């Protein structure tokens, strides 16, 4: 900073200091900043588990010890053994291989359905939030209609109309019935964003609409979109497995739900063949937990109060104070050796 221009008060000259030039942000650091919401313990754990399942889905053919449909009538209903780590089914198929191959259907449908749903949610939600008047209201009404109409019965009826729906059809049906929640949340957030000054400034500067939405607004909505996507994956996976278990989705497609369908139909639950019905269910639960963890991580990033509230209370309790106490204890502080003015002279700021 140079000599103060005529008229600026002296204090301004004293307080300013040169700021070290920042290095230009590299692509790596920008990417890191974009994914900051994932950089905490919960999210990373969740992502690791999901990554594990994705790998299994990719390499199912290599990893599975037996073809999943290989019948072996000599070894039926066997509990886990060295040959069959998770035992066998009613016709001697290897349960472990079935579970491994089942991962593929779950991952593909889960993520594809969530992708479809999220794209629709962004399109409807952000546009509904940015526009005003009857256009916004009608998009909002459309969203609410999809939200209120019960999804599972609709999917059951629609799915029953197909003979042997391919995976992408199932994913599309799940996606089309599942976008409404994300759209509603995005609309609310976009509406509040829209009134922020930097959006007004962009409009006043004549920025075209498409740039305002894509370049100005979307980065600020990223956390919400990520959370919505993760939540939809959970819902899609649960929906897929439930529908497969019910039998609405034909049993020729492989996923953990169909395994449970067979297990249940063959009375595994009544005959305590736990090796058949526990692993698929546990896998669904595990991937559900992983997705929830990722969402918790995003939640805490977006709303720091959630993260720090518990920590603050614990820290206070160590000092013997209950965070809900109305009266704060007063303590004696050791005398300071420097006065505040001295400190300021040593550390000029701004």
């Amino acid at each position, binding site marked *: 900073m140079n000599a103060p221009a005529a008229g600026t*008060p002296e*204090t301004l000259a004293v307080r300013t200091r*040169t700021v070290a030039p920042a290095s230009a942000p590299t692509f790596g650091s920008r990417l890191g900043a974009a994914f900051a919401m994932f950089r905490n313990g919960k999210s990373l754990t969740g992502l690791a588990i999901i990554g594990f399942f994705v790998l299994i889905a990719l390499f199912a053919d290599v990893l599975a010890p037996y073809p999943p449909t290989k019948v072996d009538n000599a070894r039926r209903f066997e509990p886990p053994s060295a040959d069959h780590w998770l035992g066998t089914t009613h016709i001697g198929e290897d349960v472990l291989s079935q579970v491994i191959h089942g991962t593929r259907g779950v991952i593909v449908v889960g993520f594809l359905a969530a992708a479809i749903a999220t794209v629709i949610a962004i399109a409807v939600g952000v546009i509904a939030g940015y526009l005003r008047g009857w256009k916004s209201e009608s998009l909002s009404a459309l969203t609410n209609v999809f939200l209120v109409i019960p999804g599972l019965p609709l999917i059951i009826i629609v799915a029953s109309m197909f003979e042997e729906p391919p995976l992408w059809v199932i994913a599309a049906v799940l996606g089309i019935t599942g976008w409404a929640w994300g759209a509603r949340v995005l609309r609310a957030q976009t509406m509040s964003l829209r009134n922020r*000054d930097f959006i*007004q400034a*962009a409009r*006043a500067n*004549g920025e075209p609409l498409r740039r305002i939405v894509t370049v100005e607004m979307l*980065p600020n909505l990223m956390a919400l979109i990520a959370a919505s996507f993760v939540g939809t994956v959970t819902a899609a996976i649960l929906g897929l497995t439930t529908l497969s278990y019910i039998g609405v989705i034909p049993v020729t497609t492989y996923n953990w739900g169909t395994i449970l369908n067979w297990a249940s139909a063959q009375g595994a639950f009544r005959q305590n063949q736990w090796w058949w019905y526990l692993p698929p269910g546990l896998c669904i639960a595990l991937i559900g937990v992983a997705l929830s963890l990722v969402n918790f991580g995003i939640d805490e990033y977006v709303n720091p109060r959630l993260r720090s509230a518990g920590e603050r209370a614990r820290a206070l309790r160590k000092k013997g104070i209950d965070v809900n106490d109305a009266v704060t204890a007063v303590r004696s502080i050791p005398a300071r050796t420097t006065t505040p003015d001295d400190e300021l002279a040593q550390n000029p700021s701004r």
Partner: protein
Amino acid sequence: MTVLDVSHVTKIYNVRGAGQIRALDDVSFTLRSGQTIGLVGQSGSGKSTIAKILTQLETPTTGEVLLDGKPVPRRGRGLREYRQRLRMVFQDPFASLNPYHSIGYHIERPLRLDGVVPAAEIDAEVRRLLERVRLTPDAVIDRRPHELSGGQRQRVAIARALASRPSLLVADEPVSMLDVSIRLGVLNLLADLQREEGLGVLYITHDLATARHFSDEIIVLNQGLIVERGSADDVILRPQDPYTKELRAASPDPEKHFASASGILGGAQ
């Protein structure tokens, strides 16, 4: 010489189920380049509404805004040209910058949108603008808004507003969210820029003292109505309207209160 006429502008808002609110009532004034008008009033008086109408973020219910005698176009090329000539500095230095973009980006956008300089010279122009608002370009160009102080951010906002080389500037309470110790610095910067560029500035504020320091003419707004106008000194030192008198009386005066507090402070300075 650019002349902006605000002509009998009225703005009425509808509140669903609760009637109407008259934010502005038959407001008229003229802003010329090279001149500063201070628009003074308390919160709720309609000051921000004027700013929004002038930047075309809102439209008046009745009345119109004329630039050089012609009504401001609502769309297209004409609107774009109007926007290039009238720019706004917002009140909240943090909210008016997008947290995701760097400072350099913020200044670059208006340059690209309005084609003020050829593409090859944009970087140099960005640096020049930052220097004009007395920031060190290397220090701030690649930073994000949250890494700067309030005063620095407001300077960036001013640089952004100047990028398109406007003739008119609307400053909506530009210093009210800054620390008191740096307000004068930013206001003096605005005054210098106004003088050097020959800008017409509409300085919106609730603070009488800075309004007098900074403006040639003052307009006092109360609940959407203009209650007094005149030269800065006239309005502040010789107010006619009862509301203006009240405003002035409400301003803190160190001498007036010191006399009664001296007993408590024990005479300390």
